[in-house]
């Protein structure tokens, strides 16, 4: 990538374009998992950064990716994943932002061959005037029957000025395919917060407990689940 993107580019539509010159140019990273192998990788983004990653999974390969995007400044992670026959890709990602920060995750998962599966879970907690974005495209190529793709996208807005953009997108060129996506944007449950408060939890602790539960779904199964959650809680503390 050499030329700076603009908002006319769909994948950069909600990006913090003004932050890009300071981060440009970026070096794409390439990850290849050989047929039958398995791999895992975790990205923790705490400073302004743009990551561009291309992943190719060979036949029967597996990869699990976990992301905590709590960048102070513009944080973006773009993944382009190509799945071979029977390959399996799992993404669990959390984004936490406050102030006027923009954080985003952009994925394109291509089921290039039959019987591959992909699962994406994204949880966002947004405060202040922050913007959290998830653009997720799943492409099932012609002949890639038996594909199984799922996306579960949820965002929690802590303040009126915060915004979440979630855009799941399916492009299916095969017949025998199972693809599901769910998306929800909401606020913390007031009844739940009062229940916790009535037992003695101060407001910030009650919110943190509920948000911890909300974010935990993104980190399930991570080797470093406890470390990720601890870093997430530190980021949450600044918002509450």
């Amino acid at each position, binding site marked *: 990538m050499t030329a700076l993107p603009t908002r006319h580019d769909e994948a950069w539509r909600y990006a913090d374009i003004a932050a890009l010159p300071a981060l440009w140019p970026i070096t794409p990273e390439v990850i290849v998992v050989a047929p039958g192998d398995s791999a895992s990788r975790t990205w923790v983004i705490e400073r302004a950064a743009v990551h561009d990653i291309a992943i190719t999974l060979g036949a029967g390969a597996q990869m699990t990716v976990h992301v905590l995007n709590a960048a102070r400044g513009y944080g973006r992670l773009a993944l382009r994943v190509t799945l071979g026959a029977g390959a399996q890709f799992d993404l669990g990602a959390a984004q936490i932002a406050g102030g006027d920060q923009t954080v985003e995750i952009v994925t394109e998962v291509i089921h290039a061959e039959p019987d591959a599966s992909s699962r994406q879970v994204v949880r966002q907690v947004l405060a202040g005037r922050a913007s959290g974005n998830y653009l997720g495209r799943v492409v099932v190529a012609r002949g890639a029957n038996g594909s199984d793709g799922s996306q579960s996208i949820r965002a929690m807005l802590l303040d009126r000025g915060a915004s979440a953009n979630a855009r799941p997108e399916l492009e299916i060129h095969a017949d025998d395919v199972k693809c599901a996506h769910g998306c929800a944007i909401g606020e913390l449950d007031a009844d739940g917060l009062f*229940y916790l408060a*009535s037992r003695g*939890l101060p407001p910030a602790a009650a919110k943190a*407990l509920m948000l911890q*539960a909300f974010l935990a779904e993104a980190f399930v199964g991570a080797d470093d689940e406890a470390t990720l959650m601890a870093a997430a809680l530190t980021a949450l503390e600044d918002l509450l």
Partner: protein
Amino acid sequence: MLHITDLHATVADKPILKGLSLTINAGEIHAIMGPNGAGKSTLGYTLGGRPGYDVTSGTVAFAGQDLLALAPHERAAAGLFLGFQYPVEIPGVSMVQFLRESLNAQRKARGEASLSGGAFLKLAREAAALLKLDPEMLKRPVNVGFSGGEKKRAEMVQMGILDPKLAILDETDSGLDIDALKVCGEGINAIMRRPDKAVLLITHYQRLLDYVRPDFVHVLAGGRIVRSGGAELARDLEDHGYEALA
């Protein structure tokens, strides 16, 4: 312990409590009975400080403090426990973590040392055994997948762990079968029937009062207490209905 004087409260600008006065001393168990819509649950939520329940006039003193000036979590730390008619489910938050953090938040507010994980678990197991609740359920998310009866027993387990001065129990008997009713009744007696504690039972029916014998019974109607008496008043209400007596 609790002095409510001429309390008026509204919910969504609609007056519900209209001049309620009530005094509860340490060592006493009071029952508030009344027809639907009398304001029973509103009284519980108002004393607990639930947002949306607005006090328009009157005072409430609790253990020497102005209760109405305290936030809900401060009321808990001061020794108030509100047993919910419909305990809230909170997916993803384990009962053990929630209760341990709650208890330690209360202890911190009172200037007491935190309880260690081991000491807390011992306390939680004892409380669960008292209410005949499988301690494994405390590892589950708060109230998620609990039956109606289990939720109510779990409320009593929470009360046992948090050890309040005053428990306000809103329809604790609803959704309980006969056996569970007996277990909850015995739990309330074991935890709260003490010279330094008090209970306010909010209930529709007399049946819980067979197990937890109140010292005083009050009839709430139209947002005020219209009649007070001893335990026999509950029996009269059961026999004759609210309209005849209130």
